[in-house]
């Protein structure tokens, strides 16, 4: 019996060797796509995939060839276009390492729904890349610019967005899961960060771009694209973007300035911020209260203030509170009046606290949203002043 068992084992192992290897793909059979751009051309999709040239990217060698290449194809569906790329590319496009998905503004205005299904259905893709909108440009242009510091442009786009969202706040990182959950939510509309090219696009496409200082062309994130469901309807400026992130409790750290009472400016580094959005119901009419609690350090002083006094600090805190409140309120007003849709998730807030009332409200929530009273309350706390207390400007007699 034992020997028979052994025989069986050998048989199974043989079977495995003979039949296995369906899914096997060697590393050098892969075209590692790091960025995908989707444009609309007529009724078809034009898909561009930025593919890494591994030998050029990884240290040692590096030379005359660009670190990435761009494959483009047009098809009725995105998957068809992707597969059509194999007529150009020697290897199969491998999607698991996409870092960034760029959608063109024109596509976004028509609706991004169809583009997203593939990305969420395809088992190969993951959900850790960011989705951005190419502002007033085609998406493919965004993947054509060569960059410095980070040889692979898509990886650079990824880390740029991550860093700026962390340090500066007007941009926001949106991945597929978040986008989809906002798309299906009844009480919220999505936003995406915008991306555009600054400088000379033509030079940006050649290696010359990384040979000169500063680069003639570069990519920059700016503004947030506002969507009604899956259609882009407008843009928010950087400051409004920051306000959006305040409301969304998305601020990791940022910098803002206040005007000193005697003129001049004082900038504050926000190091921690926490936002609570509360909904309440008064006679069937919803109201929203936004409470922001920020911790900020003094970053730069360009005016005469005696920071050694606690009263001054309290005063600066007040100033900062009012400043932040103002721009948050302004942004909400703008969205209410101009775009008339709820991108802040106030509807979700009401749904969570008042599920019964929400059932009635949800039918025309966006109309309700336009007139919803919002109360913003910001409190700053300034625990530290940086390396020095009073500015040397104080002692510098003119």
């Amino acid at each position, binding site marked *: 019996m034992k020997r028979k068992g052994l025989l069986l084992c050998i048989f199974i192992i043989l079977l495995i060797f003979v039949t296995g290897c369906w899914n096997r793909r060697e590393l*050098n059979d892969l075209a590692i796509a790091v960025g995908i751009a989707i444009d609309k051309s007529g009724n078809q999709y034009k898909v561009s995939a930025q593919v890494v040239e591994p030998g050029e990217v990884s240290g040692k060698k590096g030379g005359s060839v660009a670190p990435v290449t761009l494959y483009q194809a047009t098809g009725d569906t995105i998957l068809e276009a992707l597969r059509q790329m194999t007529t150009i590319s020697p290897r199969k496009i491998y999607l698991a390492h996409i870092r960034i998905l760029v959608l063109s503004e024109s596509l976004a205005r028509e609706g991004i729904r169809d583009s997203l299904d593939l990305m969420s259905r395809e088992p190969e893709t993951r959900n850790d890349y960011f989705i951005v909108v190419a502002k007033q440009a085609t998406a493919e242009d965004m993947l054509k610019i060569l960059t410095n510091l980070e040889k692979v442009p898509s990886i650079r786009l990824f880390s740029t967005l991550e860093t700026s969202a962390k340090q500066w706040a007007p941009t926001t990182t949106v991945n597929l899961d978040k986008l989809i959950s906002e798309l299906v939510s009844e009480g919220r509309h999505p936003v995406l960060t915008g991306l555009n090219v600054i400088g000379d696009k033509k030079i940006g496409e050649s290696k010359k771009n990384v040979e000169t200082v500063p680069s003639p062309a570069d990519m920059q994130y700016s503004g947030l694209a506002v969507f009604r469901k899956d259609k882009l309807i407008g843009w928010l400026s950087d400051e409004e973007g920051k306000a959006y992130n305040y409301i969304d409790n998305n601020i990791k750290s940022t910098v803002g300035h206040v005007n000193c009472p005697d003129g001049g400016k004082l900038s504050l580094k926000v190091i921690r911020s926490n936002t609570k959005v509360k909904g309440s119901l008064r006679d069937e009419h919803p109201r929203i209260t936004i409470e922001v609690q920020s911790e900020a350090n003094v970053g730069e002083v360009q005016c005469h203030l005696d920071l050694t006094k606690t009263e001054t600090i309290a005063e600066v805190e007040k100033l900062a509170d009012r400043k932040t409140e103002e721009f948050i309120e302004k942004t909400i007003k703008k969205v209410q009046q101009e775009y008339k849709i709820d991108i802040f998730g106030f509807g979700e807030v009401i749904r969570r606290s008042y599920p019964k009332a929400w059932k009635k409200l949800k039918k025309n929530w966006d109309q309700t949203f336009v007139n919803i009273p919002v109360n913003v309350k910001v409190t700053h706390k300034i625990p530290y002043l940086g390396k020095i207390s009073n500015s040397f400007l104080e002692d510098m007699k003119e």
Partner: protein
Amino acid sequence: MFKNPSLGNSDSSKEPEQTKVPLTINLQENLQHINNSLGNSSDIVIREIQIGSERQIKAAIIFTDGLADSKSIQNFIMESLMLNIANADPNHLITSQEDIFQVLKDHFLTAGDIKDVTEWGPLLTSLLSGDAILLLEGYSKGFSIGMRGWKDRGVTETTTETVIRGPKEGFTESLRTNTALIRRKIKDPNLWLETKEIGRVTKTDVAIMYIKGIVSDDIVKEVHARLDRINIDGILESGYIEELIHDETYTPFPTIYHTERPDIIAADLLEGKVAILVDGTPMVLVVPIVLISFFQAAEDYYQRADISTLIRILRFISVFISLLGPALYIAITTFHQEMLPTQLLINLAAQREGVPFPAFIEALMMEVSFEILREASLRLPKAIAQSISIVGTLVIGSAAVEAGFISAAMVIVVAITAISSFVLPAYNMAMTIRMLRFLMMGLAASFGLYGIIIGVIAIVLHLCSLRSFGVPYMSPLAPFILEDQKDTLFRMPRWAMFSRPRMISKNNIIREQSTPPEKPQDNTGG
């Protein structure tokens, strides 16, 4: 398939023809018989003498040159018989009326170990074991006198199991020395020693050692039964015994432990295990054994508990690497590229640019060439072995990478795997892991991580089904025994290791009752 077709007695009956034949009275005939039986072998020394006060009795001393200590024979047999008898007290004069044997034994032979032999079988065996045989004219019996003494390697430092801290001595090829080495460590009267003779031709001495009262009697009985079942012409090394008595042949895992360190044997005996010593080899077998024992080095118990625990965890990690390292690399780089961070993936892809083989073949080539190098350096003299390993690792490795046959990452993986496999204290277990590594690589190459997990499940199932002399191989992990966890994944402080393994020593499990050391009362007031 390979079983002996005629397990009858056809060939075994021929050999022991002489065992029962008695000696004759005629001395010359007896000597002739010895010469005939041994084919006039030149190392058999036959010294004919005449003893008695009047030298009236013809006698012969027979011994094997090289096995018997000829100096002792001269001092304690020849001198006594040839000189002392002549000068002896007249009361003890040898006369032909008396039983001369009794007289000789009682008054003249100044040797310790004297046995009567009346049949040819035992006579020849003890002659060839190094005893001196004394035959007398007119008697159909003789003496076998313990005069064994041959050139011996002596107790030296072990070469296969070295330690930083702990005793350095190792067993030798002589059974007696080995039992003495163990006795020196355990001076308890309950340390029992039973000897058997196994091997129809070699007649090798096999000793079973255990501590009565600690060992489980069932296991001793089982060991006896299995040893008695052996019917083989020769035992040259304990490996013969191991293969003939272990529980399961169709397994890559060893179910019997072997060591050449007396301190390990002593520790195992104290845990209630049974040691099987075989004459002619320094490798002593221990049964029953569990998987965890192969992860426990002697040093674990001489160093402090925290160090030992960390080192033991390191050992588990290295076994994991050694078993699954190349398999995981193959699976991840050929099936699950999404698991790699982007930058790493790009680097690996860059290394693989231009490598003509699939990762599996690449790994297989590297692993096989490593095994060749390892085996080669094992067989060569130490000095050459080193240069071989330098040539193998540095020259071939880097040349293969330069030439673009192999990716550098693969060299790293194979190298770390190879080094990890040497961390295990037990060489035979390391070999097992190596064999299974190839199986896992095959599974990984065809089914990726899924194949690996299936392989791991199969290995665990197999391990759980194994037993060593009735003790489950995976205990105390499965069946889980909480008290025995103190010396499994961790090594608890000495005072916490209060009991013996539950599964091995079924009765008498209390081992110590010491309490944790207390801090002295601080009376200085500082």
